[in-house]
């Protein structure tokens, strides 16, 4: 059991990061901290994918031919890592950056309008707005 856990330590780290990130998103009142949590949560998924593609002892996926250009024998015992998950995560990182950027710019606007980035204070002001009947 312990053996199995230790040999999958990278996945355990992924799950830990994921839970920490999600917990911050849910529990934090500060909007910037929420975004930090969200980034952490997304990063854990990036790590998950990258772990999937890596094989221990695997090399970059470039065909290595022997001196004679003989594919059959010389490529036989070379281990390659899977490049596809890495490429996927390149896309996902771009999406993550866009999400964080949009989130932060929203926080800037929220700070300008509500004069606070603490969720409880903003909600309190929102409630005041509602009771005053402004829409």
């Amino acid at each position, binding site marked *: 059991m312990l053996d199995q856990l230790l040999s999958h330590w990278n996945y355990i780290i992924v799950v830990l990061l*994921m839970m920490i990130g*999600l917990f911050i*998103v849910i529990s934090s009142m500060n*909007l910037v901290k*929420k*975004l930090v949590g*969200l980034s952490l*949560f*997304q990063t854990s*998924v990036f790590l*998950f*994918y990258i772990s*999937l593609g890596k094989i221990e002892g695997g090399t970059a996926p470039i065909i290595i031919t022997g001196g004679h250009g003989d594919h059959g024998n010389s490529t036989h015992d070379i281990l390659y890592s899977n490049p596809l*998950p890495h490429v*996927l995560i390149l*896309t*996902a990182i771009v*999406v993550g950056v*866009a*999400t964080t950027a*949009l*989130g932060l710019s*929203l*926080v800037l*606007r*929220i700070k300008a*309008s*509500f004069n606070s980035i603490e969720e409880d204070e*903003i909600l309190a002001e*929102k409630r005041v*707005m509602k009771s005053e*009947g402004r*829409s």
Partner: protein
Amino acid sequence: MIDWITHLPAIIVVVPLLMAVITALLPARFGWGLALLATAGSALASGIMMADLMTRWAGYRLSYHLGGWAPPWGIEFAVDHATALVVMVVSGLGFVATMSSKSLFMNEISHHDLGRVYGAWLLTFGGLLGLVMTADAFNLFVFFEISSLASVTLVAMGSGYDKRALIAAFNYLVVGAIGATFYVIGVGFCYAMTGTLNMVDLAVRLPEVNDQIPIYIGLAFMVTGVMVKAAIFPMHFWLPPSYGHAPMAVTTLLAAVATKASLYILVRVLMTIFGGIDPLPQLILQWVLIPLSLMAILLGTILAIYERDAKLMLAQSSIAQIGYIVLGFGMGSLAGLQAGFIHIANHAMIKGGMFIGLGGLAMAAAGKTKLDGLAGIGRRMPLTATGFLICGLSLIGLPLTAGFISKLYLVSAVINAGYWQIAAIVLFSSALSVIYLWRLIEVMWFTPSGSGQSRLPEQVMIYVPLWMLALANIWFGISASTITEISYGAAQVLMGGMT
């Protein structure tokens, strides 16, 4: 048939996405025209694609290989009957929403932001179309995020006159990102077990490893993620504030098409990707989605009754209507899926029309959608208000409207599956929805207006799209066979499991 038809799936998505960039760069006064052009192009292309597909057998699948890379290695856009129906709904309603958007934006968004706003508008539109057509599980995530980031921007544009839009947009962003990330985690598990991302390939390979735990974890993550995006109870909490505080035109676009695309993805994931693992999709449909949809139907309807703001009232009613669609899908039968697809099309027409109409009426009340502010407006703006009323009657399912066909097929699917108690709940909630619609009618027609009785000016570009949808509601209520037949084809495709 003709060769160029095979290129239509790519054209439908690429045109709005390219036009989004052009629109954002050009001066603001071109925004509406270019957006109208792009959405009209996509809608026309979808129409041609659908007409072509209707002449073929139900299992036919139009496949486009992006960049010439053949699946399962390359990304594939695939269109079958189910896809074509949803693409038609999204592009058609997107076009009508774009028509009305210029007048609706007039009071809400400053004129020189319009170029960039229409850029985001087209990104949302193109992203949703790509979402529906892609047959690559990871590519789907990218389209999810394109459309959701762009629509967050659009919701935040409401901040010009209602700063709560910012909070709504922020929550929408965070919840949407979590939903999409959940979906990606699920895809990762499935990829780890099968080594493929193509949906059809996944459908073939997943049953081979159906004794492995990771694919069940993957399914759970994917379904949860998509449920967040589709605003299925209890993951619906982001929707009413986003719809309620966004600019009226944005609400129209999102309410008409955004959740529809995600609902379609939900049934795709369950029935196509995991369709080969026999009892599993049926179990999820029956024990997870049916109870949740019933909660959504009752809760959404009851909250709508207590809402004092017409815009939020319609947003709450959307929760209930999503519940009806999910209930149809949840039956897991041919008739149930057909009912779900019928209601996807009909609800898009109903809610699109109602939000356009409400937007037109609210312009007279200085942008306010509070019920008191709308007093007597029905007599003062008869054209807009009557169009709104027709869509409203369709919402509660009055005979001779499209909404009646939805309810008819849904209730008969539910009864055929042997759940007469659920049918009773559906009928009960329909009766309840009469209450909130009546509140609107009472305020608009029978409450004397505080500020004069004279006719108010009505915008041409609001009542024309509104009446297009209102007449469509009547047309498809009387001659329903078009939609019911296409939906039947769509249901057959999904019941076939692997297409």
